[in-house]
């Protein structure tokens, strides 16, 4: 029947043929695509192999040329000639006879020795057996047998030793006979070795299989196939500068400490490690993959995954710098961020703010903090005039004051007082922390306010009390208590309030005005809504907490327990791994790329932009700051981290070990709470890196010098501190820095009878010492003190110390001035410092000269004579 349809189906044949051909073509394409199209890494590996082949061959050719240029082939020919001569000599009848004779002697001696050794083993076995029976039965017969055996063991032992000697001597004469040829052979081998190795490398490269390279981290089931394309990433040398063949940049920091076989790639770089079909897919730059690959400095965000403490972490410079911003802007005040639970309030105490500032100033500040000074950290909340007044009304009423302004330009103090104040301002180095008129404020980590317009902000009484004792108004402030007399403070207040005035300041309430209760209530609501208490301590809101939505549902409206305190903002502990579909892009869904990083950056740029009703204020960050902050936030993840990767911080380790972290105790704690040494200095891991670390200052410095320095600080390292940074790194060049004069020694420490300077000295000598630094120098016999000093002086001149160090007016200014070093440093410190300068200060520029102990003693003795006599 099939044949009957033949006449009307001719067009169907063409259709059939067409589709058959199409199907065949498709099948061929599927096979081709599966083999090559979807496996681009095969081509990369072939290319890499070819590149490496080129490089190895070039290496080999160069080595050959070098070899020949150095006369290698000539030498080789010589050696070979020598070898054949030696071999001929060895083949001579006389030598051959000797050789066979020695050989047979050796074999005979060896046989005898083996027999004796076997005998010895047997005897030892018997002895052990007998000993076993003896210990079990305590029969004296066994004891007797043991003695007999012991005697024969000794005898045979002696025999074995003698036979061994015989064998050795025969062996010696044998090798002497063949030494000539063997030596030459080894030499030839040695010469050829370098070239042979290179040749072998070339051969091995050809055998290198083309295959998927996968790293599997078992405990988190991560499979990274990145190396299938980035085949040279952990190579010993750079094969090509072209991607994907390059070596990992700075691999001595990253790969050396994070073995790729153990850590993989995506653990730090993210991306889609399993993908191998295209670069876009592998790098995660495709739709529905939430983790695009991190590149460059951005990768450092991953350090936060494992490193509990990134301070001083090599290779994490960018993220360390960025992390400062979290502290600077106090993100943790409103958001829960792991690791920042115990950091203090970022804003000043406002409990008595009504007694401090002008009402008009407060309104302007609330409206726009940056208008008062450009570096203000307080964000803009977009308050209306009305709202700002309500908030100020609440704050002022809580301080027990009314709306009032004080115009400090009235009642000008006399010029002499101002002059005195100005001198005191300079002497106390106020500008070290506080900027005025765009200058100063070099210690950026204390975030001291710009004082350019402070005269229009605060009243004189408050300023007087503040300088007298900052802790009274703001416990825990970073402002130190300078031990000024009342007269000094008066002059300083007079200078500041007249010098630093805002010409545009308004004083609307010179005539005080009452505050309306309705406004106060409204202010309180606003403060609660925007969470001012997150950064500032406020009166009447010390216990103010935000009730978690989950608790609110259960009817809880107020919490006193600070443990249960929920921050006003969203928790940020895992923002860096939050699924993108859970981020609310709101109005900007179509305006910005829908990925996590863009979301975070846009949020920082315009915190209320996504939709109406958002409360986060605008910090008006620079674009660079936005990038830095975003990179930190991106690192807060709930990534699955194997515990073996974790590097806990020192505090965590201490906690785990049940050790409490270092804390200042006793009278020194009282002094430091006042003088705030740790604003600039670091002591036992506490404090900043702005000024020298004082952790071993007690061993390093002499008591008398400390006393003098505290009374009259001077620059120690002149040029280093002044040297401009030449724009090589970002940041302002530091001005010439000296320590402020804190006027220690004039007052007693609270509740004690001791002078504060004595307490400081005592603490230095009791606590800040290390057993690494000896109190006295090792003695050198037979040399007098004068000889030691003379030799030290010679060495000082010989090594060119004065290129950097100055003594009197002679010498360079890169290193510390040594004119008075004999009074400043302890001899033990100098002695140890000369041994290895980096031991106590890792970033020091002083070279290591590799002095011997004696040389160090000479130099120390010489340096200790450099003393400035008291004037």
């Amino acid at each position, binding site marked *: 029947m099939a044949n009957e349809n033949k006449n009307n189906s001719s067009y169907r044949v063409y259709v059939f043929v067409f589709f058959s051909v199409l199907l065949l073509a498709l099948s061929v394409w599927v096979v081709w695509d*599966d083999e090559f199209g979807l496996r681009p890494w095969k081509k990369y590996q072939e290319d890499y192999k070819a590149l490496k082949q080129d490089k190895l061959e070039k290496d080999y050719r160069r080595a050959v040329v070098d070899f020949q240029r150095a006369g290698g082939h000539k030498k080789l020919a010589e050696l070979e000639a020598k070898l054949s001569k030696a071999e001929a000599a060895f083949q001579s009848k006389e030598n051959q006879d000797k050789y066979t004779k020695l050989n047979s002697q050796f074999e005979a001696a060896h046989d005898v020795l083996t027999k004796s050794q076997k005998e010895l083993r047997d005897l030892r076995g018997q002895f052990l057996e007998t000993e076993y029976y003896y210990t079990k039965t305590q029969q004296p017969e066994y004891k007797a047998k043991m003695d007999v055996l012991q005697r024969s063991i000794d005898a045979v032992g002696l025999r074995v030793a003698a036979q061994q000697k015989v064998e050795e001597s025969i062996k010696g004469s044998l090798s002497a006979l063949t030494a000539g040829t063997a030596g030459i052979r080894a030499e030839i081998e040695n010469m050829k070795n370098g070239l042979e190795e290179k040749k072998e490398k070339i051969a091995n490269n050809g055998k290198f299989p083309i295959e998927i390279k996968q790293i599997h981290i078992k405990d988190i089931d991560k499979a990274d196939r990145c190396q299938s394309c980035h085949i040279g990433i952990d190579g010993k040398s750079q094969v090509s500068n072209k991607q994907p063949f390059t070596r990992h940049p700075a691999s001595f920091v990253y790969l050396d400490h994070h073995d790729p076989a153990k850590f993989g790639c995506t653990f730090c770089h993210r991306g889609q490690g*399993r993908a*191998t*079909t295209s670069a876009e897919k592998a790098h995660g730059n495709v739709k529905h993959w939430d983790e695009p690959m991190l590149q460059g400095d951005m990768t450092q965000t991953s350090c936060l995954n494992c490193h509990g403490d990134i301070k001083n972490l090599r290779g994490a410079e960018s993220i360390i710098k960025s992390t400062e911003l979290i502290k600077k802007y106090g993100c943790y005040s409103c958001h829960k961020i792991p690791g920042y639970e115990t950091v203090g309030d970022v804003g000043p105490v406002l409990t008595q703010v009504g007694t401090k500032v002008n009402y008009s100033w407060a309104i302007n500040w609330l409206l726009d903090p940056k208008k008062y000074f450009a570096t203000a950290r307080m964000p803009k909340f977009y308050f209306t005039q009305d709202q700002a007044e309500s908030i100020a009304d609440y704050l002022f009423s809580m301080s027990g004051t009314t709306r009032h302004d004080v115009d400090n330009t009235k009642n000008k103090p006399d010029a002499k007082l101002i002059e005195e104040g100005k001198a005191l301002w300079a002497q106390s180095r106020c500008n070290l922390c506080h900027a005025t008129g765009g200058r100063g404020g070099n210690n950026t980590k204390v975030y001291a306010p710009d004082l350019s317009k402070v005269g229009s902000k605060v009243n004189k009484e408050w300023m007087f009390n503040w300088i007298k004792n900052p802790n009274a108004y703001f416990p825990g402030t970073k402002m130190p208590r300078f031990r000024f007399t009342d007269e000094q403070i008066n002059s300083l207040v007079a200078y500041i309030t007249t010098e630093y005035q805002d010409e545009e300041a308004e004083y609307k309430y010179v005539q005080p005005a009452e505050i309306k209760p309705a406004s106060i209530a409204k202010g309180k609501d606003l403060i609660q809504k925007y969470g001012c208490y997150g950064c500032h301590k406020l009166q009447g809101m010390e216990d103010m907490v935000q009730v978690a939505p989950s608790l609110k549902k259960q009817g809880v409206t107020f919490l006193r327990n600070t443990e249960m305190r929920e921050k006003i903002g969203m928790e940020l502990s895992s923002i860096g791994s939050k699924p993108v579909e859970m981020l609310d892009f709101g109005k900007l869904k179509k305006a910005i790329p829908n990925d996590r990083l863009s979301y975070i950056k846009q949020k920082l740029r315009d915190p209320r932009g996504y939709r109406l009703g958002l409360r986060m204020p605008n910090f008006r960050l620079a674009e660079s700051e936005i990038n830095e902050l975003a990179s930190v936030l991106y690192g807060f993840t709930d990534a699955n981290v194997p515990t073996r990767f974790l590097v806990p911080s020192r505090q965590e380790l201490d906690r785990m070990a049940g050790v409490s972290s270092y804390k200042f105790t006793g009278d020194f704690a009282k002094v430091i709470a006042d003088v705030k040494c740790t604003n600039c200095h670091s002591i036992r891991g506490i404090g900043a890196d702005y000024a020298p670390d004082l952790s071993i200052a007690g061993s390093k410095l002499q008591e008398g010098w400390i006393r003098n320095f505290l009374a009259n600080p001077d620059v120690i390292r002149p040029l280093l501190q002044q040297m401009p940074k030449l724009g090589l790194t970002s940041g302002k060049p530091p001005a010439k820095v000296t320590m402020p004069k804190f006027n220690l020694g004039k007052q007693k420490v609270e509740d004690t009878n001791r002078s504060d300077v004595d307490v400081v000295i005592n603490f230095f000598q009791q606590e800040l010492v290390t057993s690494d630094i000896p109190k006295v120098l090792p003695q050198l016999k037979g040399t007098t003190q004068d000889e030691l000093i003379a030799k030290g002086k010679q060495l000082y001149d010989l090594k060119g110390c004065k290129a950097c160090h100055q003594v009197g007016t002679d010498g360079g200014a890169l290193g510390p001035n040594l004119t008075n070093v004999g009074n400043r440093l302890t001899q033990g410190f100098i002695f140890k410092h000369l041994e290895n300068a980096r031991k106590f200060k890792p970033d020091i520029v002083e070279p290591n000269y590799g002095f011997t102990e004696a040389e160090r003693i000479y130099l120390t003795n010489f340096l200790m004579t450099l003393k400035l006599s008291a004037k």
Partner: protein
Amino acid sequence: MKSLNDITGSVKKNLIWKSIFRRDYRNTVRDRAQAVFGNVFLHLHPVQVRESAVKLRFTWGMGGITFFAFIILVITGVVLMFYYHPSIDQAYTDIKDLEFQVPFGVILRNLHRWGAHFMVIVVMIHMFRVFMTGSYKAPRQFNWGIGVILLVMTFLLSFTGYLTPWDQLGFWAITVGTNMGAATPLLGYQGPFSEYLHITPYNDVRFALLGGAQVGGNALLRSYIWHCVAIPLFATILMFVHFWRVRKDGGISKPQK
């Protein structure tokens, strides 16, 4: 030529050949019919079909195409099972590996996925055609009923297969789908009258579907087993009934005339 005939003749006399094909074949009406009903796979099919019934214009061939899609899905599905673990840690990466690593994994998975979509569409067109041509009428009422159940089976296969890649799409689809179950009267904890049966989130129909109160590892395992074993088994049995009844109810439907 003669030798070729000799060879075929001797092969056909062979015991093995005879045991498979039982009798000699001559191109006659009787032998052709014999070939169909003597074969276990073909005997469901009618021996003779009217020419008007195979007009593409009338049947659209949708039933056959649906069965064809089903066969493709079974074959690709079985191969996919070799590469897939129904556990929440591995399911998604297994799918990713199919895309990146498994030889012919891309075509395999896409055949299965697009084939599934294709089958759902085609089976609905089949139903539409049957309805529009009135082919559900007597004597085919019973087979229409079987067909409706098979349609539901197809949808359930599609639904349960949706979760297996363990991606966001499947996760939320199953969440929404089973939440609908939670609103079933009497049997779902959110449904009306469920309180009379003491139904809670932990003993309702949703719990039975998910093997828990949330979409998790148990839900994945359950949907996997429904998808790969239980539903295909039911569907296959019903398909045989369906084909059998097509024949018994008077053959494939044809234009009235």
